[in-house]
């Protein structure tokens, strides 16, 4: 059917593989209209003074100036930076250590893996609400420890503006480290057994083998994991909504929430577009160097 020559000696190039092209229409539309078109649209409109409805009255960088002068946005960025930094470090370290422990030919490996990964099946809303309950000073961990005798024990991150972002971090790590552990475990399993034998013969201690041999060998896995965690960090939204709704005050605001609130609640579209464009820039900063490392340097796709 597709690509058959009909009459003319040179088939029309548009009709070659016609069925494949027809079948790819949804993908082409999505790629061009939504991913490319939508992104360009938002970036263009971020330079307008759109309020309730999108309008094409350009105002230059006004929206961005207002954005970077807004205390709430600065708070969001600061939170994202703190959350992102610790989330990356802890996810990678905890994930790797757990994977290394799981790789010691232990018994009940499946049971342990099941336990560590089940939170990942749960939504951020569910995760957030559970931890909201556990971190509730009146009923949660604080009250339990106090009931045991430490009456001055204080652990109420969600109600303390200074540390609220760490309360969110705890829940995020609970939800996500299982995934990192799984990826790392897959990476460890991919390493040749002979490497271990060789290092044992040379009498190199185990931790040294991990740090100086295994981890450098797992570079690919680490980079993939890093990109996954990082692009998840920029998007963090549900968890904050469920745990604190951005409070106390504006202490746990994040950029994704800023965007939503300005687009759909405050009806200040221009601000929303500018803020989401900043999110896009953040992701680009993460992705571009990675894409360059992975696909650049001579190896061209297509």
């Amino acid at each position, binding site marked *: 059917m597709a690509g058959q020559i009909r009459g003319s000696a040179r088939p029309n190039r548009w009709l070659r593989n016609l069925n494949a092209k027809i079948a790819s229409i949804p993908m082409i539309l999505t*790629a061009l209209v939504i991913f490319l078109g939508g*992104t360009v649209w938002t970036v263009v409109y971020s330079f307008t003074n759109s309020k309730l409805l999108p309008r094409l009255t350009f105002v230059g960088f006004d929206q961005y100036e207002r954005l970077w002068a807004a205390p709430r946005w600065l708070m969001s960025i600061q939170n994202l930076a703190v959350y992102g930094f610790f989330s990356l470090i802890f996810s990678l370290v905890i994930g790797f250590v757990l994977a290394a422990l799981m790789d010691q030919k232990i018994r009940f490996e499946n049971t342990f893996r099941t336990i560590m990964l089940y939170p990942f099946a749960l939504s951020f*809303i569910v995760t957030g609400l559970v931890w909201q309950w556990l971190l509730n000073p009146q009923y949660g961990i604080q009250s339990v420890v106090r009931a045991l005798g430490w009456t001055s024990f204080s652990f109420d991150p969600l109600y303390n503006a200074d540390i609220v972002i760490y309360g969110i971090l705890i829940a995020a790590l609970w939800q996500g480290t299982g995934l990192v552990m799984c990826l790392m475990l897959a990476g460890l399993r991919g390493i040749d057994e002979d490497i271990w034998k060789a290092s044992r013969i040379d009498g190199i201690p185990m931790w040294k083998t991990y740090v100086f041999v295994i981890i450098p060998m797992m570079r690919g896995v680490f980079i993939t994991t890093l990109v996954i965690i990082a692009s998840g960090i920029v998007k963090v939204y549900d968890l904050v909504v469920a745990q604190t709704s951005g409070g106390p005050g504006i202490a746990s605001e994040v950029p994704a929430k800023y965007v939503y609130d300005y687009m759909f609640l405050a009806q200040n579209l221009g601000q929303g577009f500018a803020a989401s464009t900043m999110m896009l820039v953040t992701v680009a900063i993460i992705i571009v160097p990675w894409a360059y490392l992975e696909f650049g340097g001579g190896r061209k796709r297509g």
Partner: protein
Amino acid sequence: MIAATDAVPARVTSGPRGRKPRRRLSRRNIIVYGTLIVVALYYLLPLYVMIMTSLKGMPEIRVGNTFAPPLEITFEPWVKAWAEACTGLNCDGLSRGFWNSVRITVPSTIISIAIASINGYALANWRFKGADLFFTILIVGAFIPYQVMIYPIVIVLREIGVYGTLTGLVIVHTIFGMPILTLLFRNYFAGLPEELFKAARVDGAGFWTIYLKIMLPMSLPIFVVAMILQVTGIWNDFLFGVVFTRPEYYPMTVQLNNIVNSVQGVKEYNVNMAATILTGLVPLTIYFISGRLFVRGIAAGAVKG
């Protein structure tokens, strides 16, 4: 305990044989298992507390002892969470959100997998000029924060008249499932032996015949993986549900958040926890049933890019 049987004395003449005997209670084992058990307890604690809280009555919760099992088990909170809890004006519990989520998840999963598998098949076996460009845009698009594309999608959906409906949300989930799923299927189909495809072509089979008669039957595992990925992903979605639907069509996650974080009235923690478990039940069930496949699904989804 069993250590003695392991250390069978080796014959000196022939040298030691078999595996090196290992003591079960070595220092190393204690550290490894000890750490793993402590970690496992940390992961299990929230689930435990959720279940315990949901089975208690409010008077017992006010006493404290959150970690203690209920003195008197009651299923009242579960009934209330499912059928009576209020969100906004409606007081019919999570049941409405549950059925909305089902009506969103089932078609979204089927449509997105159908489209993505055909896309992947076309990309792997019927490469046409420019296909790689679209595919690259799609994959790069997967990294773009949803917030950047939300408003244009609102406009598109409004233009075609499905904004605020379940249909609109199904379209959105299909769109955002496309990058990862297409990648998944493309890689899978590319890995199948090429001779099969060539032989079928020689026999005169066309695009759809090969897809339906050869590719589909050979790819059950990847379809199951894609299904797990989509069902859990769509069921757990919050942002799209809140942006693209009206309150009567809110999925379960949105409704749950509204129930628990509503400011009016006395907070009924037991009902809240029962509602939370109910919302997590579908993905948890999938996770526990599919086990290994779920891990594979995550790994497959994780290689995006």
